[in-house]
């Protein structure tokens, strides 16, 4: 049941009641059980009072990942939780990147990436937004060049199954 090897990246999707203390409980659970969580995002759903929560973590052991799901489901406020099938789901995040770029760099980036310039100031300071897979965002930042990047804000993953 358990596989020992490289920690596998996993996404767990949960629907929770939008009540005070729920996020507190979930973050306490992560700390208490020492789960190796990478990202945690929460958003409203079409159903009032219910939030959608996406949690990604690295865990090699299937049984341990199942425990995360079970511990989440144990909470009265968690309506359901499950691990997403990595091959059947989309994982996306949004990044806002502030960097110093001239017209040449902007043109080159525009060619390769579906980005949106949010603001541009004198001395070439730009703020751009990009959405996509983790790899696309990593590539985007690499294309700008580390020495030109001032600040990066990444949203963490949200995910959906086919």
């Amino acid at each position, binding site marked *: 049941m358990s596989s020992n090897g490289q920690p596998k990246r996993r996404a767990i999707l949960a629907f929770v009641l939008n009540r005070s203390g729920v996020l507190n409980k979930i973050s*306490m659970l992560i700390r208490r059980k020492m789960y190796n969580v990478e990202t945690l995002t929460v958003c409203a759903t079409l159903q009032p009072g219910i939030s959608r929560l996406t949690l990604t973590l690295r865990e090699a052991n299937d049984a341990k990942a199942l425990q995360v799901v079970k511990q989440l489901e144990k909470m009265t406020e968690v*309506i359901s939780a499950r691990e997403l099938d990595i091959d059947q789901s989309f994982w996306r995040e949004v990044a806002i990147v502030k960097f110093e770029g001239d017209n040449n760099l902007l043109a080159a980036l525009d060619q390769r990436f579906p980005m949106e310039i949010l603001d541009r100031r004198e001395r070439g300071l730009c703020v751009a937004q990009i959405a996509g897979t983790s790899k696309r965002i990593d590539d985007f930042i690499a294309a700008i060049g580390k020495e030109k990047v001032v600040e990066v804000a990444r949203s963490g993953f949200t995910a959906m199954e086919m």
Partner: protein
Amino acid sequence: MTTGKELVLKALEDLGVRYVFGYTGGAIMPIFDEMERRKCFTFIMARHEQGAAFMAQGISRASQSTADPQIGVCMATSGPGAMNLVTAVADAMMDSVPLLAVTGQVATGVIATDAFQESDVVGVMMPLTKQTYMPLAADRIEETLHEAIYVAMTGRGGPVLVDIPKDVQTQAVSDGYRFDPSAFQPELPGFYYSPAPEREAVRRAVALINQSERPIVLCGHGVVSRSAGEDLRIFAEKARIPIGFTLHGLSALPVDHPLSLGMVGMHGTVEANRALLHADLILSLGMRFDDRVTGKLETFAPNAKVIHVEIDPSEIDKNVSTMVALNADVGEVLRLLARDPQITSQPRRAWFESIEAFRRETAAEVEEEIAAGVGREGRLLMKYIVRRLSEVTAGKDIIVSDVGQHQMILARFYNFQTPNSWFTSGGAGTMGCALPMAVGVKLARPGERVWAVMGDGGFQMNLQELGTVMEYQIDIKIVLLNNGYLGMVRQWQTLFYDGRYAGTPLKSPDFGLIAQAYGIPYRRVTDTDEVGEALRQAVDHPGAFMLELRCDPSEIVLPMVPAGGGIADMIVSKKQIGESK
């Protein structure tokens, strides 16, 4: 106009609460004031909030097997009052004991200003309870308390906390407020409770049971709290399966039943642990494979398939992988198994012959020790005292135990006959639990005799509760096993720390004078000849009685699975210790 404090008491009354244990203070005064006016409960004033919460635990633990299961309720004020509840609430969580803690909070207007006696009680209690609540309007109080008690008592039991700001206690309900307790259904879309077993899983479990040659039942707390001991007996006798008990599974059925192996685990019997090691099938009932049961997981029951019956789905496959998981009420599963015509009766002669051999392994050595009754310098052995206690009570009385050597010795040598007659802090292992817990147990089961057994360390952690015993004339028999040490830690120091007794010897006051100060009759016992007679004196005395027995600090609880070791590493005999030292 109806106010919040009236609704708190109305809700508790509607929910059948009879006792409230607590300690007053600024932020809970309105509720106490209302309680004094209504006189609808017996209020028991503990001498410390921790005591109040353990007394409330006693009510829940002792009444869960009766026709009228009660939830223990404790009340405290904000800040330090609430913080003093924490240990006993965490203890209830570990042992799956339903408990309602009601705390006063500073008024909503000053919350988060570091007001006098303000603490974030909800924040502190969140990871230690099944659920926490803070109603912010009088209109919410009744539904909150009804939901809280439903959550605490449904499925796997546990504590809940309701923290009520002082202004909400005195607030009037809004016009047209209505609440019908009989029609109330908590709306909990995320609360999973599935008591009915799946037919297919039961069928697969029965097939495994019938195929097995060396099966063992692990009887846990769930069997006791669901009063399923009798069904377990019928099933186990029909299928011919030996039964090992977890600490909290003890007293599910008479422990001298021919199929009983006694307790399993770190200080379990030789026969129970050897049987676990050699079993080809483990049928675990209402238990959670605690590390004190399994020892090192990698070497636990290497050849056994596991059927796990457990109401809490998060416990299944947590520590031990299962072949068949039955996420259901263990009482319902046992009712089915006891009557399932598919269960075949098998002699399993070879298996029972090996078990008899396991039983004989150390029996003579143990009996020899008990016959001597004393260890070094003629000091009493705890196992001798427990054997005498078992004889004097015929194993029928209720035992409430503190934590340590005496607890393991009671678990090993008390001849439990009465269902649900053994109460102690297991998962948390909270020293000092026994005296206050015994108060609640006695109130829940007034017709039965209750013994509170403790060491000199644990007794001094909550001895202020002698005041409660005195004031409310609680008839409990206190057995103080005084060896001048924190015995279990001393035992580890003897075995694993080269006999350096760091922080374990303790000087005690004159316990006779303490008992006298509280008006409790007392007797000190030092000789084996006196033990039986002194126990009978305690039995004959109408009312609380305290016995202090001077014990041998060098007594070692065996068998013992060393921490971090597997069951196969079990030390069974004093001779082994001699060799390794």
